[in-house]
Each structure stands twice: as structure tokens, then as C-alpha cells.
């Protein structure tokens, strides 16, 4: 009682490769638009960071519809990385992001090494962008479509090339669709990643027996939401053990308890994805829930909780 009563406001601040976050909760790319869409429902100054949709060199139209399908405790999406492209992003979206004091992280991708490098250079020039997140779950068109993030050599090459032309923290986002995620994690760490975020969606499929078709026009889609949490948690745990750099945990986080689980196994921060779609105020509830938990447990600083698994 005595100790608990003393903690008025626990400190939730975390450091992510030099980036100071007021708390460890941020959106996952593609579930938060460009930030502004959520301003009516959520105080963007209350979350740890803002994360944009994935940006590419040129505008991308994305896949035909249907693009989404609900599954047991989750959803499949095959949006196809629709985005406005770097030029329109800078013209139309950055001015709003500049007004925020919350750190802004821009997620980006390419279909060739060259595209990755070009976008990275543009992002380097933008003072409003505090860090970038590299999505390597994309096919390399020049190499027969093999996904950068599933082959350690290709992943290392794109990470080191981007690292060389970037003047801010580099987060590398891993795909779970590999045999051993620790191999990929070590490869991108050695290539110069400052932070690893994991996981992206798990490739899945849904079938409509009445129409005798696949639900998604694209055939396959990425599974997200509570259904993937146990898999994501296992992978985050493994990656934390495998590398020295900080790890951001992603996958099926809906509540403060879910976030606390990822932090406990060693994630330095978490990203919330599908939960934003279900409840646009989800991250505010998660931050409040973490704070309440810390207060009740007598945890003065969230850093004392991170990675403190009893084993």
C-alpha cells in the first residue's frame, strides 16, 4: 500500500535509438492513414509517435476489390500498398504532420533497391520526419519478385543501402512469413538497422463456399488482429533474444494487457494496428490502461517493466 500510494504518475517515456517517446504506444502503418484522419477521435499528442501509411516513390493504386475479409478474431487485407506517393505526401500530408510535437515516423517501401534509396533520400530532407520505418515485405521486381524481407542477403542489401543515405533513425519492419525470423533480424542488425519492428501481417486466405471463389480479389491477403497475437509474441520474444538493438512489438494488440505482454518479453515499444480500425480511440485507452497498471503494480518507470520477464 505504502509504495503504491506514492506513485502518482508513473513514467512511461522510452528511448528508441535516440528518439524520445512520451510512451511506448504508436500506430502500425496502414491502419492510421496519414494521422490526420484520427484527429477527431484521438489526441495525437497523447501517443508515443505517429506512423504513416507506407509511402513509395510513385503513387500506387493498390489492388482491386474485395480487399478485406473478416476472419475468426482477425482480418485479411490485400490493400496492395495504395498510397499517394512521396511527392503528394510531402505536398499534402507533411504540413499537418509538422504541426505535431509527437515524433513522426514515415513507413516506406519500394519495388527495387533504387526506389528504396530514392525515397529514403527524400525523407532525409524532411525535418518533420523524426524516423523512418522500412517495410521490406515487398517483392523485388528486378529479382523475379522475391520478397526482400524473406532472403537475408537481399534484406541486408536494402538496409545497408538505405542506411547510407539516411540521416535519422532507421526502423526495419520484418515479415513473419519466414522460417526463422532471428536470421532476418540478425541480418538487418548487421546491415545497420537501429531498431527492428515486427511483425507485419501473416499471409493467409479466405474462401467463399457459396460463390466458390476466394474472398479477396488478390487471392491471398495479410492476416492481422487478435488471431495473430500468439505468433507475433513468440517472434518478438525470439528477436529480442537474438539482437542488441531495440525491438518494437506488433501483432494483435487490442488492449493495455496485450501491450504489456509485448513489453514484458522485451519490446521497447509497441505498434497498434487493426485495433485502430475497430476503435479509433484504441491507443488512448491502451496508454491509460498501461498507466493504471503501472500505478496499481507500483511500477514507477515503464523501463523497469520492459524485458523483466521472470525466467
Amino acid at each position: 500500500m505504502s509504495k503504491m500510494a506514492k506513485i502518482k504518475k508513473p513514467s512511461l517515456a522510452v528511448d528508441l535509438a535516440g528518439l524520445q517517446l512520451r510512451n511506448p504506444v504508436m500506430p502500425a502503418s496502414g491502419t492510421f492513414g496519414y494521422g490526420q484522419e484520427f484527429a477527431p477521435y484521438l489526441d495525437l499528442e497523447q501517443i508515443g509517435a505517429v506512423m504513416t501509411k507506407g509511402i513509395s516513390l510513385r503513387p500506387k493504386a493498390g489492388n482491386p476489390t474485395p480487399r478485406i475479409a473478416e476472419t475468426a478474431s482477425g482480418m485479411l487485407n490485400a490493400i496492395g500498398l495504395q498510397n499517394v506517393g512521396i511527392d503528394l505526401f510531402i505536398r499534402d500530408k507533411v504540413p499537418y504532420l509538422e504541426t505535431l510535437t509527437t515524433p513522426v515516423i514515415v513507413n516506406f517501401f519500394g519495388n527495387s533497391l533504387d526506389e528504396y534509396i530514392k525515397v529514403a533520400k527524400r525523407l532525409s530532407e524532411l525535418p518533420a520526419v523524426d524516423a523512418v520505418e522500412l517495410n521490406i515485405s515487398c517483392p523485388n521486381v528486378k529479382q523475379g519478385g522475391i520478397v526482400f524481407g524473406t532472403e537475408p542477403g537481399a534484406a541486408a542489401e536494402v538496409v545497408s543501402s538505405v542506411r547510407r543515405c539516411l540521416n535519422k533513425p532507421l526502423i526495419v519492419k520484418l515479415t513473419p512469413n519466414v522460417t526463422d525470423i532471428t536470421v532476418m533480424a540478425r541480418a538487418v542488425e548487421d546491415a545497420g538497422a537501429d531498431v527492428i519492428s515486427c511483425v507485419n501481417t501473416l499471409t493467409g486466405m479466405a474462401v467463399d463456399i457459396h460463390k466458390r471463389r476466394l474472398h479477396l480479389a488478390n487471392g491471398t491477403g495479410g492476416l492481422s488482429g487478435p488471431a495473430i497475437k500468439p505468433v507475433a509474441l513468440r517472434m518478438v520474444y525470439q528477436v529480442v533474444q537474438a539482437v542488441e538493438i531495440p525491438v518494437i512489438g506488433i501483432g494483435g494488440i487490442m488492449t493495455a494487457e496485450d501491450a504489456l505482454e509485448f513489453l514484458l518479453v522485451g519490446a521497447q515499444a509497441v505498434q497498434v494496428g487493426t485495433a485502430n480500425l475497430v476503435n479509433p480511440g484504441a491507443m488512448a485507452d491502451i496508454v491509460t490502461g498501461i498507466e493504471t497498471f503501472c500505478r496499481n503494480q507500483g511500477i514507477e518507470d515503464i523501463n523497469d517493466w520492459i524485458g523483466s520477464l521472470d525466467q
Partner: protein
Amino acid sequence: MQDLKTVILHNREIAPGYFRMAILAPGYPQQALPGQFIMLRVQANSQPLLRRPFGIFKTGTLPAECSGMPEREFVELVYKVVGIGTQLMSTLQRGDEVELLGPLGQGFTLDKTATEHLLVGGGIGLVPLFMLAETLCRRGDRVRLLVGGRSRDDILAITEFERLGVETYVATDDGSLGEEGLVTAVLERKLNKYPQAAVYACGPTLMLNAVRSICHRQQVALQVSLEALMACGVGACLGCVVPGHQHSEDDPDYLCTCRQGPVFDADELKWPEGGPEGGE
């Protein structure tokens, strides 16, 4: 736009498989515009995970009661049970909690020049047309509702339209109410009689496609309210897009149904042979 944790005021079956649900919704009578929609979360767990979109049928205020109950503003939905979400909704009762996100999207644009209006609804597609009829009638315009459905059980709420002063015309596939046949046949006749009318339509894709070709041929203004599979309803996931009029294989142009719609000017959309793509 707000996310309300609120309660159900009533929820009852009005025809086999169709329900009407009123939800306590402070602010809706002032904010909601004809053609807008809401996203409803009926459960706190993840089954089903996503909210479901529903058109706003009407808004209003319940008077204060002598028991001391104050005035209560509400939003009313009319829905058809088609799957797990709507099935779950149909079991809810007065006092049960729901989460209501809205009002969302771009509704109907009120045509300033036309004074004759033809509202075309197919089945549950009638829902977003009620507030439109209310607004147009209040302006003193002539409003006609043409409504189609499989049988008499699929024709909903027309007496409420009639009470506004709307002339209603019904067509059913089996002739169990109104004339036998398609509502689009009624539309062709009415357009011959009122060639200056503005047309507003909501219903199944095949109906919208037929309405579109009739209006295109007759060169009358058409607005359509579309349905699409939605995850977020606020423009974040891009799951709900429909091809815009410039859409092609090489230069895809997509519009977001939840933010740029659900009501579109027909000319904004791509109309392939099968009707507007996207959603179901």
C-alpha cells in the same frame, strides 16, 4: 463525428428478417445529414472483430417523460439480418450497450435547381432515402419514392414516407405488393413524365446499374449511395474503395466509399457492364 458508448432504446422486428433499432445518440439530430452512415460495434470481444456500417434511417428526439426521464436524442437504423453481426444485433434489447461511430461520410447533395425528385430504393436500400425525403419535403419540393423488393415483406416503412407527403410507387418481383416487376420499369415511366427530375438511388448493384443506364440515356442527374466492405469507416484502411470514372488497368483511380462516399455523383464512378465494382 464522435465515438459514443451508448445504449439501445428499442430493437424490434418489423418484417421477417428486418429490424429497426433506435440508439441513444446525443447530437445526431443536429449533425447527421441525409445519406450519412454510422459504424456500429455490438460486442466488446473480437467475434465479430470489425464494426458494421449502417445507413442512418432517421434521427429524432424522444420527449421528456413524467417519470422524470429527460428528452433523449436518438438515431434509428433499419437492418436486414444477413450474417453474424446482424444476427447478434437482432438479439439485443433496450438498455444493451453499443458503440456508435459517426455520423460518417458524404451524404446526398441537395440539387438546387431540380424541384422534382425521384428516389429509387431497392430493399434495404431505402434506408438512406428517408432523411433525404424529409429534407426535400421540408423545402416544399415534389418527392416521389419508387421502391422495389422481392415480395411485400421486403417493402419497408413506406407509410412513413407517405406521412411526409411523398408519393410512393411499389414494384415487387412476385407482385405481392404494388405492380409486378422491376422498380426500374417504374423509373422509366416516371422519367418520361418528369424529364427534369433529379434521381437518387440506393440498392443492389444490378439495380443501380440499370438506374444508371436509364438516367444516362435520359440525361438526368443521378446520385447513388453505395455499399462496400468496410473495416474502419474513417478513411484509414482503404479497404472500401470503388473505381472512379477514370479507372483503367493502367491508371487505376480509386475512390474511398467511407470518406468520399457513400453517396457519389454517378459521373464520378466507373460503370462497367456489371455495375459499379467493389464491395458486394
